[in-house]
C-alpha cells in the first residue's frame, strides 16, 4: 500500500516565477492538507481540500492556491515567488473528510529553493 507521495522532491526557482507541487494521497484517503515548513520551524498549515473544494485556509496570501482532482490527488501552486517562499512543502492525507480526530499521514515533502 503506497503512502503519500509528492513530486518533485527538489525544485529551484527564481523570484517572480510560478511553481506547481503535486501530491497523491494514501490509498483510501479523500482529504489533502498542505503545510509549509521553513528551516528550523514547525510546519504551518496552508489549506485543506476535500471533495475538490478548499475547505479551510491558513494565514497565507492569495499567491498560494490549490486544486484537488476527482482521484483525490492535489496540486499546490505558488505565484510570484519570493525568497521567503523557500521551504519544505508537506502534503498530508486523511480519510472520510472528518475533522480533528483523524490522523494525517505525511509525504516526504518537496524542498523549494527560491533564488
Amino acid at each position, binding site marked *: 500500500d503506497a503512502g*503519500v507521495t509528492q513530486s518533485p522532491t527538489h525544485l529551484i526557482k527564481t523570484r517572480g516565477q510560478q511553481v506547481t507541487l503535486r501530491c497523491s494521497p494514501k490509498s483510501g484517503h479523500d*482529504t489533502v*492538507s498542505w*503545510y509549509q515548513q521553513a528551516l528550523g*520551524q*514547525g*510546519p*504551518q*498549515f496552508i489549506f*485543506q481540500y*476535500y471533495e475538490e473544494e478548499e*475547505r*479551510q485556509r*491558513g494565514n497565507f496570501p492569495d499567491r498560494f492556491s490549490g486544486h484537488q482532482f476527482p482521484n483525490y490527488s492535489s496540486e499546490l501552486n505558488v505565484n510570484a515567488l519570493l525568497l521567503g517562499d523557500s521551504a519544505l512543502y*508537506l502534503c*498530508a492525507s*486523511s480519510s472520510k473528510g*472528518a*475533522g*480533528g*480526530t*483523524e*490522523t*494525517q*499521514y*505525511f*509525504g*516526504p*515533502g518537496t524542498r523549494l529553493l527560491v533564488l
Partner: protein
Amino acid sequence: AQSVTQLDSHVSVSEGTPVLLRCNYSSSYSPSLFWYVQHPNKGLQLLLKYTSAATLVKGINGFEAEFKKSETSFHLTKPSAHMSDAAEYFCVVSDSQGWGKLIFGQGTELSVKP
C-alpha cells in the same frame, strides 16, 4: 485559539538513558494531541495520538505520552534511548472543532550520545 509550546528546543541524552520531551498545550475544548517525528531530510511520521480515550498513550518504537488536563501537558517519554531516536520531534494539536488543521510546536531536537 489552540496552541502548543515545546519547552525545550534541544535535548541531549546518552544511549540507554530515559528520554523526556515536554509539551504544554492550550485549548478551549477537549483537544486531540499528537507527537510526530521527523528524521533528517524526511517527512513526518506519527508516533502516537490522544483523542480523549486513555490518558496514557502508547506509540511506536517504545514511546508513550501522558495527557494531564490539570497541567495542560502532553509530555513524550521513552525508557531507554537508542541512537536511531535522534531526530526532530513535534508536539501537535488538532483543530478538532473545525476540519482538523494541525497546529505544530516549534520542535525539539533530540540528540543521542553513544
